[in-house]
């Protein structure tokens, strides 16, 4: 299997919103971060991948099985088998308030043929989740850990996370990231992780895919953003010289003006520093890169 997830030309139309031409791929052994502003279409894309909404066009392959596109309807049963190999985490603890931690295990046992009761109990113990506690008694962080324990106890090959770390404090987020690193330590597993907290992706992602207003914006290895790219901090008076230096391709530069100067997105900060040593250039974070690409003026 070349890809755990392969999305090509995904389209979905709603009143006032359209997802168009979305491309996305998760290879075995990789963590793909999925970013974009609110309403960009991330959740709709994830829903389409998980077979929760029917795409209007495009193809989606999940663990090698087509779940949309030609022939997908006939493969509804195959989708079920595929879903048994995936773990999903939403941005809240989804289980009803009255469920106890042990009850959630009963649901998992009934749902997944590969459910491992001992693994679930071991994860619950490791996360400090008492079996008799009800969902409504859990804090947000503990609720997310319960959802993660549920998602991991059937040994999935793929995790799909939709804002799984949103609303968690930094310590809890780090704990969740540790759990995800442990998950990735075994075999050819993969994670697709939609999030607004781009600093989490800097710690764990291999690739970052960005969409905006339903359209793809960029899909790059994380290292191309966090190691190679940079943000040149120049004065307004230096901008023309920077743009005319030949280091940046005309029509490809992204420029963001602010009160104290101008930020310019630089794809290769080392080459830029060699060409224009007098202009300071910082490493780009995923947030910097995304902000400049989405909000920057094209020059």
């Amino acid at each position, binding site marked *: 299997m070349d890809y755990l997830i392969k999305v090509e030309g995904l389209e979905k139309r709603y009143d006032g919103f359209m997802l168009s031409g979305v491309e996305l791929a998760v290879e075995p052994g990789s963590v793909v971060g999925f970013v974009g502003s609110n309403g960009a279409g991330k959740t709709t894309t994830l*829903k389409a991948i*998980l*077979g*929760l*909404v029917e795409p209007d066009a495009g193809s989606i392959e999940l663990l090698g099985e087509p779940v949309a596109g030609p022939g997908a309807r006939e493969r*509804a*049963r195959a989708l*079920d*088998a595929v*879903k*048994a190999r*995936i773990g*999903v985490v*939403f941005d*809240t*603890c*989804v*289980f*009803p*308030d*009255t*469920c*106890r931690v042990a*009850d959630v295990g*009963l*649901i998992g046992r*009934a*749902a*997944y*043929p590969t459910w491992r009761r001992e693994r679930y109990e071991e994860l619950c113990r490791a996360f400090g989740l008492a079996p008799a506690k009800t969902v409504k008694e859990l804090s947000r962080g503990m609720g997310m850990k319960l959802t993660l324990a549920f998602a991991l106890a059937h040994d999935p090959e793929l995790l*799909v996370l939709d804002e799984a770390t949103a609303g968690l404090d930094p310590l809890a987020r780090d704990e969740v990231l540790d759990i995800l690193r442990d998950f990735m330590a075994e075999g050819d597993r993969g994670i697709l992780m939609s999030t607004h907290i781009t600093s989490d992706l800097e710690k764990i992602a291999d690739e970052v895919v960005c969409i905006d207003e339903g359209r793809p914006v960029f899909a790059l290895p994380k290292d191309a953003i966090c190691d190679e790219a940079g943000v040149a901090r120049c004065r307004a008076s230096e901008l023309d010289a920077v743009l005319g230096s030949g280091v940046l391709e005309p029509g490809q530069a992204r420029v963001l003006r602010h009160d104290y100067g101008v930020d310019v997105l630089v794809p290769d900060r080392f080459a830029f520093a060699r060409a224009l040593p007098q202009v300071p250039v910082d490493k780009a974070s995923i947030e910097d890169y995304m902000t400049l690409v989405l909000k920057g003026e094209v020059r």
Partner: protein
Amino acid sequence: MKTLVISDLVTMRSALLQLAGICAIVGAFISIATQSFVAASAATAIMIPLMFLFTTSAYDETRDWELFRLTLPVTRRQVVLGRYASILLVALLAVVLASVLGVLLALAAGAVAALAPVPLPEGLVPHEGFVAEIVAGAAVSAVIALVAGAVTLPLIMRFGMTKGARLVPVVIVLLMSLGILLAGDDGPLAGMLTGLEAWLFQGANLALVCVAGVVATLAVYAVSAQVAVGLYERREL
């Protein structure tokens, strides 16, 4: 389908236990107010499945549970059929619970009557065939609950609990109006109803009607489930 039945039952376990206690207390009051144990068991048997239906449907809309459930290895068809199966199961359990409650209340009242100087009303004293009356009352109520479920569930599956529950009264009023139109004084079925009561109590007619009623209800329930499957499979969540 098993996944859905189990998830419904574990979700509702504490609520069902609470409701069983509430039913015992309410049942005692209803028995005294109506001077009949049949009314108490009938109320219990209808209250439990309907409460189960509306509460599980409400939980579906809480915190994306309904959406998340579809990420499990279950089809939409299984989700719907699982909900119908769990309500049917709870209706059967409610008949058992309501019957036991009614019989226990009747026996307790009988014991009190033997000791009390004031005679109790006839409906509150165990008499010949009182167990059958209590069980039949509970069964009829459960059947009514299933018919209500058959009307309500397709709407909830199509529109969700919030919007679906708003449409339920509209559909019930329409069905009642249709019934009045057909069986009212000038309706085409008016003549058929004349003498129905006398006919019912001839020979085994009542038993036959009861059996036919249960079979018809289960058939309506099954048709409703198929309709709900079709509606839920087309619903955008």
